[in-house]
């Protein structure tokens, strides 16, 4: 009953979405572009989590929810699980992915043309791209009843870590 789509189509749509919002719609206001991309991710995560938790019994606590995100949810989205999970037991979790699937298609530009203090355009695009999975995680968690803030750090492509701060 379900139809299938080639993964390269998904890659293409995501890359084009980030580029459209970053370069065309909000070219002069990168914060608004980031906000928009994160909001799109929020809606996607919100709807996806409904589908992926359908068969499961209900969760007991926050840690179980985060473990579900790290294992089953990540497996469905990226065909692998999160490689490392750290927590400070006070509502902050760090999810580390050693080989983030969407970043494997980003090229690292060795020659940076603009030396006017701003970063090379490739890392700007990477930062904008990472707002999308942050939004997905935030949407998924908030639909499960956990309001939070998610930020991403990718100093070392394709290694990527997401920090989830649960709002008390």
């Amino acid at each position, binding site marked *: 009953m379900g139809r299938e789509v080639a993964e390269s189509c998904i890659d293409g749509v995501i890359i084009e979405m980030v580029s459209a919002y970053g370069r065309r719609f909000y070219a002069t206001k990168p914060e608004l572009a980031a906000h928009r991309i994160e909001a799109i991710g929020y*809606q996607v995560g*919100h*709807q996806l*989590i*409904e*589908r992926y*938790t*359908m068969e*499961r*019994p*209900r*969760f*007991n606590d926050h840690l179980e929810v985060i473990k579900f995100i790290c294992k089953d949810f990540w497996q469905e989205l990226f065909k692998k699980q999160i490689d490392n999970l750290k927590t400070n037991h006070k509502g902050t979790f760090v999810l580390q992915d050693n080989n983030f699937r969407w970043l494997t298609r980003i090229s690292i530009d060795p020659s940076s043309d603009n030396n006017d203090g701003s970063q090379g355009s490739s890392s700007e695009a990477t930062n904008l791209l990472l707002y999308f999975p942050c939004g997905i995680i935030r949407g998924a968690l908030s*639909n*499960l*009843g956990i309001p939070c803030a998610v930020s991403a750090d990718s100093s070392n492509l394709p290694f990527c870590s997401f920090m989830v701060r649960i709002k008390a």
Partner: protein
Amino acid sequence: MIASVAVVGHQNNPLYLQSFTNANDALKLHHIVHCSLDVIDERVNNPKRSVSTLNESYLGLLYPTESYKVYGYLSNTKAKFLVVTTDLDVKDADIRSFFRRFHAAYVDAVSNPFHVPEKKIVSRTFAQRVSGIVKAFAAGTNG
């Protein structure tokens, strides 16, 4: 036979209410569904220690009144599904499979990009699927 089905969001806002009897009793159904929400809250917040139903989605019979019974189901995202039935003798397995199919239809309706979360479900496909599931249920219990 099933009198009505309802979907209630996690802030107890009604998302979908459909009645399958011919009478014009939408208000009475709203009232029944609203009262059942209290029972759901009670079941979820005060788990009975004897039965380990703490994590199950299917909540079972919520309360029987003189002419109908109400069954409940709570999803992981705190969406509540309620079924009001006038059948006296309904098998648990039938209701469980009804809720499974209903949940699948709900997930498809919510995945619609034009659906606004926490607003009413206006999809006609969803209404048709729910009618189909209710008809199949009635046929299954009568057969």
